[in-house]
């Protein structure tokens, strides 16, 4: 059953147009407004747009896309709050000691960090999400590569 659903996801007729559409649309927005912003800011925004388009095209079925959307929303809310609340004093951030990297770190833990929303996920579920995430990420990379190719070549 699970393998069937996975394969159905894989054969999902066109996940790509949605993703392409969202990504290009976001690119357009960025390009409209980001003429003033710096290069790194634009780069981050494009990266965020790429992940967001991935997440939105995958929908809310997947845990990783939900996690991505959640983090993006939270970020936006934080920004808006920062924009509205002007005079509030900033909380001073205490620098945490850097986390020790366990030498023989469990590979599952590494994978958990890589896949959004993977922390606290069951291992079996994590593998499933990883598979879907990899699929979407590969599509996104292909799309971005096409865009870059077209922009640079022509």
């Amino acid at each position, binding site marked *: *059953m699970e393998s069937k659903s996975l394969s159905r996801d894989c054969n999902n007729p066109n996940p790509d147009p949605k993703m392409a559409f969202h990504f290009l649309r976001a*690119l357009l927005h960025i390009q409209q407004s980001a003429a003033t912003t710096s290069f790194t800011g634009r780069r981050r925004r*494009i990266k965020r747009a790429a*992940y967001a388009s991935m997440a939105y095209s995958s929908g809310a079925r997947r845990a990783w896309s939900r996690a991505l959307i959640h983090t993006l929303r939270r970020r936006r809310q934080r920004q808006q709050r920062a924009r509205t609340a002007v005079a509030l004093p900033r909380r001073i951030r205490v620098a945490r000691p850097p986390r020790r990297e366990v030498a023989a770190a469990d590979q599952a833990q590494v994978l958990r960090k*890589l896949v959004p929303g993977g922390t606290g996920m069951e291992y079996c579920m994590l593998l499933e999400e990883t598979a879907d*995430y*990899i699929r979407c990420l590969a599509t996104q990379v292909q799309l971005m*590569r096409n865009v870059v190719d077209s922009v640079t070549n022509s």
Partner: protein
Amino acid sequence: MMMQCVETTTPLSDHDLSVLERQRARMGWLQSAAYDHGDYCSVQPSFHGCDGHRKNETAHGSLHCFSNGWPDLGTIQYPVPGAAATVIEETTSVTVSNSSSRKRKPPEKSKQGKGRVDSNCKRIKEETGATSESKQENNGKEASGDTSKENDKPPKTDYIHVRARRGQATDSHSLAERVRRERISQRMKYLQDLVPGCSKITGKAGMLDEIINYVQSLQRQVEFLSMKLAAVNPMMDINVESFFGKDQVNQACKSVSIPTTGISSEMLDQQPYLQFNSLQAHPACSGLDMFMDYSSDLVLRQTASGEPVALPDTTSLSGSCLNINGSTVWNTSNLQNFYGVEFQLGRESTAFPFQSLQGNVLPNNLKMEM
């Protein structure tokens, strides 16, 4: 071949036995632990008719494998060389029939069946009214293998079907653990197909390593490509701003436009109307040829994966018109697909049209919108 007729004749008496009763009876049978063939056959009435067959078979086959004549026995198969093929066929057919009625099934069923052909295998199949269950048990390769132990799953859920081999634990925890491991290996197999170059690696640790590397490389690629795009963007911006001034003029004369992705924000409001006019001017826009040969500001390109992607062209200076390139490669469905998407882009310039996108993919919907 003789086993086939045994199988077809037997499974009549067990339809009314519940699983619990069967299991209890089995446990009792295990405790009695009688090694004699005669005893078993006397215990089990429904196999009396086939007794001669079975004796013959044991004489032919190995002596270690014997039948526990239990009422719910469907099949008893010995690894007689001629019957080996039928064993495999039987297992696969059983798994196929099970997959419809069961939510999850252990994936290695057929594989195990294949692996066991050479060992002494005995398969027990029982057919209940709604679901068919297949049970396999290994008859043991040891010399003392005649105490064949049959482990059944506790009937806690209807859908998970677990078989335990001889010597495996049968309490619910270890059974659940076994199911989990099977699922994990299934996912791993799927991931192995997904990650390039992962199929050669054996071992879970190496595979996980490879998967992690692949994900990391993909994420790095996204970062890198976004950097490239960011480097490209400002130039694109200027170009877009420049050509949209003349855009309306050119649309008036050439009357074909596809709203680009490189539209600046003030153009977004005008875009639906422009496109509306253009599409009305050419209502029969099924042919792709009419979109060709316009000076290119927008390259609409089919990606390697067959999806249309709209790409703002930065360097072309002829400017003011929009174009589709590569029209020979296109199939119309993709193009119209793209139109649906882009039409939505023009219409609702603020909201995210996720839901409406799917509806507009069809060309019919597109024409309705026109």
